[in-house]
């Protein structure tokens, strides 16, 4: 192995860099927020979701992409679940009519994971659930 010049300075610099980069993690661990998850208000309107919760948590964006292409590209507006139950394919008309609290459900988690989906740039919050 070659000799590292200015070993002390280089290593100190590296350590400072790593500590700075990971500081948000340390900060949260020190102040007891290591297990923080956003407090989501899941309002279900009493109905069952189109898919299992575990699936939706991970893959709702994939389902929405499929739904989007179904309606726009092929004109199919009905989604049939494995058990035969039918749903209208509509973000505003189906998803948001059950999940009525967009601010404390969709937005809160999106902010936590640091994503800014542009769905709601065009798609409306339905009239019934506007505040």
């Amino acid at each position, binding site marked *: 192995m070659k000799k590292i010049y200015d070993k002390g300075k280089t290593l100190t610099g590296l350590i400072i860099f790593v500590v700075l980069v990971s500081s948000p993690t340390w900060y949260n661990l020190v102040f007891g927020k290591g297990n923080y998850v956003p407090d989501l208000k899941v309002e279900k309107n009493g109905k069952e979701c189109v898919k299992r919760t575990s699936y939706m948590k991970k893959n709702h964006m994939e389902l929405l992409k499929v739904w*989007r292409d179904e309606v*726009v*590209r092929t*004109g199919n*507006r009905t989604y049939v679940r494995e058990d035969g139950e039918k749903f209208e394919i509509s973000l*505003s*008309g189906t998803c948001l009519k059950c999940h009525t609290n967009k601010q404390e459900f969709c937005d809160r988690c999106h902010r936590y994971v640091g994503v800014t989906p*542009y769905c709601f*740039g*065009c*798609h*409306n*919050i*339905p*009239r019934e659930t*506007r505040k």
Partner: protein
Amino acid sequence: MKRRDFLWIVGVSAIWGIFFPRVLASQEKNRDKRWVMLVDVSVCAKNRDCEACIKACHETHNVPNVGGSKEQIKWIWFSKFEKVFETEIPPIAQKKLGSWPVILMCNHCENPPCVKVCPTSATWKRKDGIVMMDYHRCIGCRYCMAACPYGARSFNWRDNKRYVGNVNYDFPLRNKGVVEKCNFCEERIAKGLQPKCVETCESRALKFGNLYDADSSVSKVLKERTSLVRKGYLGTNPNVFYLL
């Protein structure tokens, strides 16, 4: 390739092309729908200040009212007969017809130039004839606007949502940077309704229906009455017909 093989391929292709030229265009045969709009110009001429269809359409589809500038967004609008049908009618006839208002919208051409130029397939022709826009895919290059000979497409130069008066929450808005146009009320047809402009018009100047259905009212009217299409010489084959 041997010379002999080459001649074989050329010969077979030539025979195929002569006797089965329709094979390549066979998609047309699978169609059972061709949505068309009929605009009775003579009825509109009697109600010159009527803008009911324009207002209803733009309210239904959240079309922003940017004003009369170059940035204005329009799905349906009107112009004077002499401007729309400059070459279709001889100048002498323009004296009577020239000042008539003519309702204009996307022609949903059978041979749409906008579709040909779109690099992302964000606009395409559906099987029922509607030229659709997929705002998710539009990258805002505006090739389609340059290609459309009817000026039926508008570009959202900026976020125009604040110009939408009363938002219709049952229909989406559009983001900055996409091209928009009339969709023949695709979302209403899917529910079995007539387009909003047709439904709104009290004097029934507009008719909508399936031209491939011989018993439909539009087929019957088109059989009987004289009609014009905009810039027919371009070969776009529009689906909006103007009844005289």
